């Protein structure tokens, strides 16, 4: 067990270092001098002095290996440098946007799990009936529909129904209020994006739950449980679901990428000032320091998430633990 954990944790380090090298070199692949691109893009006049200052600010006047070291070392203690667009520290920019994205991510996961597991289970138990077909179509629909479009349609429906009911269309608030200050306002803002992202997030897990359930229901121990006269409900809840959920847990971790991708576009639809929107703005504004920090941050979170899932999996499944 400890051997496995140690091995798995050690594997994270080369991945993260590799990712850091990739991000670092990608940002230096930009054709031309990023300071010239940055200063010249606004049509502003600039002089060599300004470029030198800019180079100095982002540390480009140092040798490459030292720049890389600064990047990695800075990242290790949350010093991501200074945003090339706003001039504020990147860490401050990120910290201001983090709560809202985290909240939506958390709510979306809750939505996803509470859609995926019951529906996937029903679909497997009623295999090849109309219920199965409906659930599977619903799941493929979730994979096929872009989340920004679900968001747009959700806004459209909310506007129309509230307009018809109260005579005045209602829009969810867009400014972030912490949940402990005004829970109603907070939730009314977060719930639509959470459902939008959550539905997409749930689609793959729903299919996974279904196929895992189908596999488990054919196992010998299910037949044994039936043979000893156990109630079908107990068999499903205690024996089948417990084993079928293992791969689903892994998937929820891996599909974290879905969540990030969903947040990037959904925050744009709902005009929410979260990390996803910050990312898009950073790319639009050619804010390379901010883009670099955000990409690296996402990758780190993603890699750590996968690590957590793998460890959880080992803890849940003794076959891995003692292998």
């Amino acid at each position: 067990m400890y051997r496995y954990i140690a091995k798995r944790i050690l594997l994270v380090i080369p991945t993260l270092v590799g990712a850091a090298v990739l991000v670092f070199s990608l940002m230096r692949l930009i054709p031309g001098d990023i300071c010239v691109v940055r200063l010249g893009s606004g049509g502003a006049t600039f002089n060599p002095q300004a470029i030198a200052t800019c180079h100095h600010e982002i540390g480009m006047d140092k040798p490459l290996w030292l720049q890389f070291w600064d990047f990695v070392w800075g990242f290790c203690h949350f010093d991501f440098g200074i945003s090339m667009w706003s001039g504020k520290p990147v860490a401050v920019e990120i910290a201001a946007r983090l709560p809202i994205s985290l909240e939506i991510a958390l709510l979306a996961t809750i939505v996803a799990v509470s859609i995926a597991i019951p529906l996937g289970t029903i679909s497997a138990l009623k295999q090849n009936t109309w219920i199965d077909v409906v659930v599977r179509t619903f799941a493929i629909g979730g994979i096929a529909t872009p989340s920004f479009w679900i968001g747009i349609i959700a806004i459209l429906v909310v506007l129309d129904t509230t307009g018809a009911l109260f005579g005045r269309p209602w829009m969810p608030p867009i400014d972030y209020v912490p949940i402990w200050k005004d829970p109603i306002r907070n939730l009314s803002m977060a719930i639509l994006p959470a459902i939008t992202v959550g539905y997409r997030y749930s689609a793959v897990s729903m299919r996974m739950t279904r196929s895992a359930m189908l596999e488990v229901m054919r196992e010998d121990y299910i037949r044994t449980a039936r043979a000893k006269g156990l109630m079908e409900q107990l068999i499903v809840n205690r024996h089948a679901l417990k084993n079928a959920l293992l791969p689903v847990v892994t998937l929820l971790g891996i599909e974290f990428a879905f969540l990030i991708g969903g947040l990037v576009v959904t925050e744009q639809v709902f005009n929410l000032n979260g990390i996803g929107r910050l990312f898009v703005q950073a790319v639009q504004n050619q804010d390379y320091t901010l883009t670099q920090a955000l990409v690296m941050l996402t990758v780190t979170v993603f890699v750590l998430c996968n690590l957590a899932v793998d460890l959880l999996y080992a803890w849940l499944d003794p076959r891995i633990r003692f292998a």
Partner: protein
Amino acid sequence: MSITLPRDATIPVPSDEAVTANSWLRLTLDFCRRQPFGAFGMLLVLIMAVTGLSADWIAPYSPTANDFEAMTEAPSWAHWLGTDQFGRDMLSRIIFGARTALVVGLTSSFVGGIAGLVLGVASAYFGGHIDNVFQRVCDVMMAFPLIIMALAVVSIFGTGVQNVIVAITIPLIPRCARVVRSSALAIREVAYVDAARACGYGHTRIILRHMVPNVMAPFLIMLTAFVGQAILAEASLSYLGLGVQEPVPAWGLMLQGGAEEYATTAPWIAVFPGLAIMVTVFGFSIFGDALRDALDPKLRNR
């Protein structure tokens, strides 16, 4: 956005010699009979492809022509799907958008897929250190969620159709290589690869002529899924304003401009392009699923 395929998808393929035009037809008919749902997906894909190819002839208007007499006009006989805020015909833009989606989707998934195929098979064939290093490189690449990698590439090379294709191709390569490699690992152990080696054939010949054809089934399944994903990714990038740029007609881009602003007054601007994306990706998804069920004997009779 990742693809869920069985890790150990090793699927035998019927030998190519016997496949003539006639048996292709029979295979297709057989597929339609066994997988009606998948056949429906294939039909959607075909409709989309034909629409994209013949856009010049079937579109009633030019996709970029403004008619300032008819801005945000509701669907009518003159404009079946209405007009947008610049007086452009929605139907024509959706028809030409199919072409953009097709070009971006097919190019990026084919280039990414074939690069992944060759790299994956080569990695499995050579094994040892090469395979190990390649696997770690894949680990690193796959630590970037698809859309994040695409955005990072766009931030370097800029927007536009070509750059979007590059941005979507790069993250697809390791994803394809991973799956192909696991299938190729099993094939490397098969006797005919040893036989080919004993005959003194070169590495390139063994990889391309003996191993690649035998991982075609999982590869094709994945390719179908990739096209759908690539179309979705293109739509997302264009929606964010970081993909295809005006005046090129693209579905994601059509949703960017006026969709929210005119949500209540002109809902058709928001509804139809999204439907087009959904139906197309839906078609590719169910076609890919049916293809997998038909080609993977392990999943048959489920």
